[in-house]
């Protein structure tokens, strides 16, 4: 958020690119991606048959590639893309390419200080590369990329031993573990999932399966004393080394801290999140079979939803919780791929247990204002995108819209949108949405 203070919050509207014009120039335009501040819009374009490159605000890079994908703007507004030519993949940051080349690159992410990290494969070795510097140790396989909160460490679930397909006994001895900056935990497990860093970057927790049946949480390779029928991803409590994860007991799912239950039993619990102040914890729960809601500190909202509730989001002051929710009136009706069944698959936003009155074809994650008083999100209605604030849908619909951003004072909104085939950056006072 701090960077947004330096953004242009005065200019009401900037027309940055006429996409119609761009469309005429290229065979194909894909992955339309605006920068966070909205000043730039990038795309993968195909200037000639089977050659791809990137284009920012209408300006094309003169290098072309066989493949380009995974466009993202770094916080410093540099465009990062994964590019492939002559059988080699590398990362391009604006118009500069990493010297190191790979057989494959994926899961590209940024560290908070603006470095580029990704899972990489080179020869038979899998690992992680940060700004072109690859882990010294390669692994048989590396899945997922987890970056520590300050960006100094990277981790991945890795396989340490090559086993033949069909060697079920070898597999069950455990060949998976966690590697941090290429260094593995001492212990291996049958499975490792849901790796997460502590807030001080010093510790790692993950879900592990000890054999085919016993699940638990491992912190820095040391497992909880208790094992469970199943577990889901752990999180560290902010400012501490306490680890909280959903566990499955014969009585149902509950949330456990360091192996001991801290909540009552539910049909399901997952996606638990701590409030910014670290004092409250919210999670998606099913208090009854087929009913979904959010529980905060163990108490579920009174209102539940038939289909699903998406991960909870705390307000900056830690006092409010919002989540996207979905309901269907006729769950057993024959569905259709091309049409909506009236009354079914309706999305909305619920704030502190109260859903907005209106529902939508799709909603994006709720966003709290810096003062925590307002909630807004992007919604889709009949193929057009709108901004909805506290349940009220904005006047203007767009062909494309990216997540709106609050100004630091919470008075204005940065809107990055496409209207009439043109990309606009707009700054709109909240009252005028």
């Amino acid at each position, binding site marked *: 958020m701090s960077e947004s203070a330096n953004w242009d919050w005065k200019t009401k509207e900037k027309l940055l690119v006429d996409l119609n014009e761009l469309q005429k120039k290229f065979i194909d335009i894909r992955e339309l991606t605006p920068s966070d501040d909205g000043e730039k819009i990038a795309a993968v374009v195909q200037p000639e048959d089977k050659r791809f490159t990137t284009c920012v605000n209408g300006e094309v890079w003169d290098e072309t590639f066989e493949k380009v994908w995974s466009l993202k703007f770094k916080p410093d507004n540099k465009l990062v893309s994964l590019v492939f030519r002559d059988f080699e993949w590398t990362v391009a940051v604006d118009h500069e390419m990493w010297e190191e080349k790979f057989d494959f690159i994926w899961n590209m992410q940024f560290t908070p200080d603006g470095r580029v990290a990704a899972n990489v494969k080179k020869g038979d070795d899998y690992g992680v590369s940060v700004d072109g510097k690859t882990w010294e140790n390669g692994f048989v396989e590396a899945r997922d990329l987890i970056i520590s909160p300050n960006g100094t460490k990277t981790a991945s679930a890795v396989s340490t031993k090559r086993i033949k397909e069909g060697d079920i006994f070898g597999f069950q001895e455990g060949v998976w573990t966690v590697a941090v900056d290429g260094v593995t935990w001492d212990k291996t497990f049958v499975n490792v999932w849901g790796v997460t860093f502590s807030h001080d970057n010093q510790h790692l927790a993950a879900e592990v399966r000890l054999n085919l049946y016993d699940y638990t949480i491992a912190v820095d390779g040391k497992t909880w004393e208790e094992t469970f029928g199943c577990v889901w991803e752990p999180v560290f409590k902010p400012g501490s080394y306490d680890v909280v994860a959903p566990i499955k007991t014969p009585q149902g799912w509950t949330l456990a801290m360091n192996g001991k239950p801290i909540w009552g039993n539910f*049909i399901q619990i997952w996606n638990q999140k701590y409030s910014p102040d670290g004092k409250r914890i919210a999670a998606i729960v099913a208090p009854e*079979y*087929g009913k979904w809601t959010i529980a905060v500190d163990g108490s579920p909202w009174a209102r539940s939803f038939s289909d699903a509730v998406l991960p909870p989001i705390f307000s900056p002051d830690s006092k409010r919780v919002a989540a996207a929710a979905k309901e269907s009136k006729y769950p*057993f009706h*024959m569905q259709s791929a091309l049409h909506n069944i009236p009354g079914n698959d309706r999305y909305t936003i619920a704030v502190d247990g109260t859903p907005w009155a209106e529902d939508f074809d799709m909603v994006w994650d709720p966003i709290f204002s810096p003062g925590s008083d307002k909630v807004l999100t992007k919604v889709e209605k009949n193929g057009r995108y709108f901004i909805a604030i506290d349940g009220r849908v904005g006047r203007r619909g767009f062909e494309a819209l990216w997540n709106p951003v609050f100004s630091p004072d919470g008075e204005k909104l940065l809107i990055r949108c496409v209207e009439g085939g043109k990309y606009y950056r707009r700054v709109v006072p909240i009252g005028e949405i």
Partner: protein
Amino acid sequence: MFEFLMSEAVYKFVRGPLVWIAFFVCIVGSAYRIYSMISLAKKEKVLLPYLSLKYGLRSILHWIIPFGSINWRRHPIITIVTFLFHICLVFTPIFLLSHNILWYESWGISWWTLPESTADIMTLIVVFSCVFFLFRRIIASEVRFVTYPSDFLILTIAFLPFITGFLAYHQLLLPYRAMTILHILFGEAMLIAIPFSRIIHMVFGWFTRAYTGSEFGMVRHVRDY
């Protein structure tokens, strides 16, 4: 033994308290079985949310109508025997004149009754159906393979009240009183056996059918008949 069967005291006992006991055990026992089944079903969580009255009834209807389902149509003889057997097994005792007289004597209630000759035929249908099922159990390999002594026992439990009723009515084999006492005893045994044996299918069958009908009809959009 024979004298015992002829005694007034025994008659009074099987005609009096034992009837009460038999009905009590049957009704309370079956009710308890239903109750515990539903409690278990609630605990299993994934059953009741998928029950549908419409599709449950649709399924039941197709299976209680002769030839209403594909498998009934595939086995005409079994279907005919099965339906006749069950209809006669259930309705003969309820609408039998002499049973009605007993209800009337005991509780002052009565209803329409079957002509005696019809009831006689229906009784014989049950008797011969039992024989048919017995032979099927022995002869048909797929049935023999899954046959346990308990299957013969259940068949016998169904068979005895009817055969003794028939013999008593026609005063064959044993003196009327003795045969009647046996008949009553076997009838009561059957009632008592319902909640404790697989004769409970007469109670559970509706539920299993309705559940499968609901899953097939409401969730999967297909027939189950």
